[in-house]
Every structure is written in C-alpha cells, then in structure tokens.
C-alpha cells in the first residue's frame, strides 16, 4: 500500500508518518508510567492519615505563575536526584508525589543557579525579598538578574478564579461544589481544604498575604508576596522525619 516512492514524494504523508514513527519511542516510555502503581508515591501523614502533598494555596499558586512568567526555570531546577552529592547539598531527593499538582512541572534540566526543590524555609522572608530585588547585595558572586518590580507591582488577582478552574480541569483537586469540598476535607483535613476552595480563593489569598506579610510591606499584596510565599513552601510538604527511608525505596 505504502510504496517507498509514494511516501518519499509526498511531503505531507512523510511528515505524518515521521511523527508516528518517532512518537512510538516516547509513548512506549511514558504511557506505562500512568498505569504502574508505584510511579507516584502514596505519601500520607503516618499519624493523621491525611495526604502530605497538597495543591498550592491561591497565593502560592500565583507566586508559581510569576516564577514561570519570569523564567526562573531557565536557570533553576526543582529536582533533587538520588545522588550522594545532591543529598548532602540540597537535602532529600525529590519524590514524584511532590510535583504531582504542578502544571507544568518545574523539574528543569539546567542548573545555572542552584536547585530550588527544597528552598522553602531555608532563608528568611527578608532575605528572599532582598535577594530577589538585588541578588548581589547578599551574594556578591551571583549572576542572577535583579527583579525590583516584584516588590512594587501589585498582584493581579482579576483572573484568580479562572486560573484555579483551569488547574482543576487538568486534575488539581481545587473544589467548587460542597461535594468536592467534603472530599478535600477527607483527603487533606479541614484547614487545608478551606484553602483549596475556589469560591473563597480571593479571601484566602488576602488572608495568607496579610498573615505572612512576605514582602515586609503590610499595606499591599505585591507580586513579591506571592513569589516568596511560593518559594517558602517548596519542598516542605513532606516531613521526611516521619518516614522510614525504606518506605520510599519500596516505590522503585
């Protein structure tokens, strides 16, 4: 049916068949991962039985949007590999479960700057603000650009709801209905479930920004508030002290 010559002389068909041929390699490697039970670790708090990894709060999620907007991923990875040197420098290797609500994930493949998968809690908010505004004032040898506008730009919240609904469509368990909310209470506990409620997103965002005061300026909610809130939660959801290391090895 497909004669060699007829394919080679028909560029449209050649493109389609080339795509089919090269996607087989990818599909064979990727598709089975969706069916293999151990791909994403089941990480539940041993005491409460609640899911340890939760979706980002509205403020953190907006911070994450800014992280992608500014292209932080071009220089910073968020993936600690299971090697001794990375363990010693960055901390526990990343779990698949820790990025299961990331769309798109920020694993990255290039480290011009350090890995950020466990940067949360490592530095104070004041340091983060100072460092993002003028990196060389705290790390003289740094080549990171300055991001002074984060502190002076108010966070755009107009499309907060749409953003969360979009994430919900690709599988992040933000809740719209009472049934979904109740399911989240069971899965994450009440205090977390509240932060995942799309109907209360704006209030939640304001409350977290006010309580955290990440950028040191309580008067407004800036992009800096959002970005620092996001950075401070990175890699902190799973408390590895509560698990035997063996538990995570069993998933591989």
């Amino acid at each position, binding site marked *: 049916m497909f004669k060699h010559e007829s394919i080679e002389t028909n560029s449209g068909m050649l493109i389609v068949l080339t795509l089919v041929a090269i996607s087989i390699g990818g599909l064979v490697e990727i598709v089975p991962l969706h069916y*293999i039970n151990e791909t994403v670790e089941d990480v539940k708090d041993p005491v409460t039985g609640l899911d340890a990894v939760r979706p980002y709060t509205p403020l953190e999620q907006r911070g994450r949007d800014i992280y992608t907007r500014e292209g932080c991923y071009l220089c910073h990875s968020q993936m600690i590999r299971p090697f001794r040197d990375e363990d010693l420098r960055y901390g526990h290797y990343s779990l698949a479960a820790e990025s299961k609500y990331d769309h798109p994930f920020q694993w990255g493949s290039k480290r011009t700057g350090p890995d950020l998968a466990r940067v949360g809690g490592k530095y104070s908010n004041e340091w983060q603000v100072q460092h993002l505004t003028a990196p060389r004032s705290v790390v003289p040898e740094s080549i990171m650009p300055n991001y002074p506008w984060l502190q002076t730009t108010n966070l755009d919240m107009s499309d907060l709801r749409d953003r969360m609904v979009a994430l919900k469509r690709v599988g992040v368990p933000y809740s719209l209905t009472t049934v979904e909310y109740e399911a989240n209470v069971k899965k994450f506990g009440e205090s977390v479930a509240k932060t995942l409620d799309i109907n209360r997103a704006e209030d939640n965002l304001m409350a977290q920004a006010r309580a955290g005061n990440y950028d040191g300026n309580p008067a407004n909610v800036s992009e800096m508030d959002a970005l620092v809130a996001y950075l401070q939660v990175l890699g902190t959801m799973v408390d590895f002290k509560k698990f035997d290391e*063996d538990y995570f090895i069993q998933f591989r």
Partner: protein
Amino acid sequence: MANPVKDPLTGAETTGHVWDETLQEFNNPLPRWWLWTFYGTILFTITYWTMYPSWPIGKTYLKGMFNDITYKTDAGEEKTTHWNMRALLAHDMQNGTEALKQQEYLAKVGAASYDQIAQDPDMSSFVRSYGVGMFGDNCAACHQSGGQGVVGQFPNLVDDDWLWGGDTAAMETTIRGGRLGFMPAYSKTFDDSQLNQVANYVLTLSGETPVDAAAAVEGQKIFQGETGGCYMCHTKEGKGMHAQGSANLTDKVWTIANLPAAETPEAKLDAVKAVIHNGVKRQMPVFGKEGRNLSDTEIKVLVAYLQQMSGGATAQ
C-alpha cells in the same frame, strides 16, 4: 529484489529510487564492523533489560535480576532489593568509602567536647573542611562567605559582639531554633524632638560626639525612664542583653545603623534616628528538627567552625 536496478556507468546496484530525473543512490553493503557493532548493541539491550528495571507489564514492570542491592532501613533491618537509584543511594550512604570516612569523623566530633575539637588537629581540620561546605550552603547566603554579614540586615559573625550570646551553648540554641530579633518602631511614641534627644544620647553611649549635647542629656532620661523604656531591653547602661538579643550600644560595633559608612556626625545621628523610628525586625530561620533538620552533630560542626572563624574561645 528480483530485478536489482544497476547503474549503467559503473554496473553497481542502486536502490532504484530516482530524484530529479537522474539522481540515484548506490545500494552498497554496510561495512562489516558497523554491521556487527549494530548486532552487538541489540544483544546488549537484552543483557540490559535482564539486569535493570525495564519492560512494563500491566501495573508493574520487569524489575531486573543478578543485580540486587542490600541496604539497611532506618529501623536497622537489612533488606535486599532489585536495582534502583534510591536503594543504590541508601547503600552508598551506608557503605561508600567517602561516606564511611565522613561518618567516622562526624561520630568522633559528635562525641567530643568543643575544647577537645579545638585541641585535636585532626578534628579541627575536619571541622574546617566540612564546616566550610555547611556554612556556605546554610549560612553564607545571609552572613556572607566570610561571615562578615551585611550591615543593616544580617549580623557580622566574625567580630566579638554577639547579640544572642557567643558561647557554644548559645550558638547551638541560635542555630537549632532560629531567632526573631525585634525592636518596636518608635514612630508613634516619640515626637521629632524626643527622637532627636534619644538618638543623640545613643551616640554618646559608644563614645561618639553627639550633634546636640544638651539633647543627649534629655535623651538619657527618656532612655532610662518609662517614656522610652529603652532600658528594658538595652539595660540602663546600654549594654544589651543576650537573652533578648538586644544590642550592646556601648561598643563600636553597629549591626543595623550603618555608622561606619556615615562620615559626618549628622549622618550618624540620622542613621540612629532611622533605626529608632522604624524599629527592627529580623529573623534567623530554624535549622534544627523543626526547620532545615540539621542533626545535632552537624550543628556542632557549624558551631565549632564558627568558633574557628570568629576567633574561638575569646568570643564572649
């Protein structure tokens, strides 16, 4: 291939494809070495599939064999499993040559006193090399790689002035639990003249020349009285308290108001005024179990390293 197409000029076999009317391609056999390498790689995949995790089968996958890894769980139980990176890391952390050497030294330092570490050249040099990495990763971002800090933001660790105490126990507590340095803003408490008086007095405490000596006298009353209440943290003499993290105002070390950069007495006064007016809020993160989860031994290495860095036992 019943009728191989031949090139009329050379008589060699071609693929039979024709482009642009006359352009054709010889169908020469592949070089032998290339062909056998190719077959070799196919054979290699079979070995590879057998030994390492490979083909998916339903909800699981081929785990590999002849290649098991033995490691110890945190509970101390010995386990053997198919080859995977996580088990390999656990095995490496427990049995690798460097890892064992490091553990041996960490155990030695963990069991020794600070005096013993300082006196033992072997442990001292371990602290220096292991500590520089730990300091670089955890501390240098704020306190800078030489420990000199940033005036106005992050305290200097190499001078002899310690806000929260410079003995080993206090340093351990600071690293383990973090610190919250706080001084209230006096913007609402003091009017302009009171602010001027207190700032002038604070300058005299460390031997600086006040801009207005008469104001300084008034400032002392506010400082030591209930209007300002400054003495509650800084003490009546202005020496500060380690328990509060309040600065010693009588020495020449300035951690927040940037006096070294101020050239005129007026500029110095303004720098002090700004601190009193705005207050101070500084936070050092938690590095112990509730935060970065550094082990007690690692904290000990850091403290010992800091002692070497800041002049050791002379630190008060």
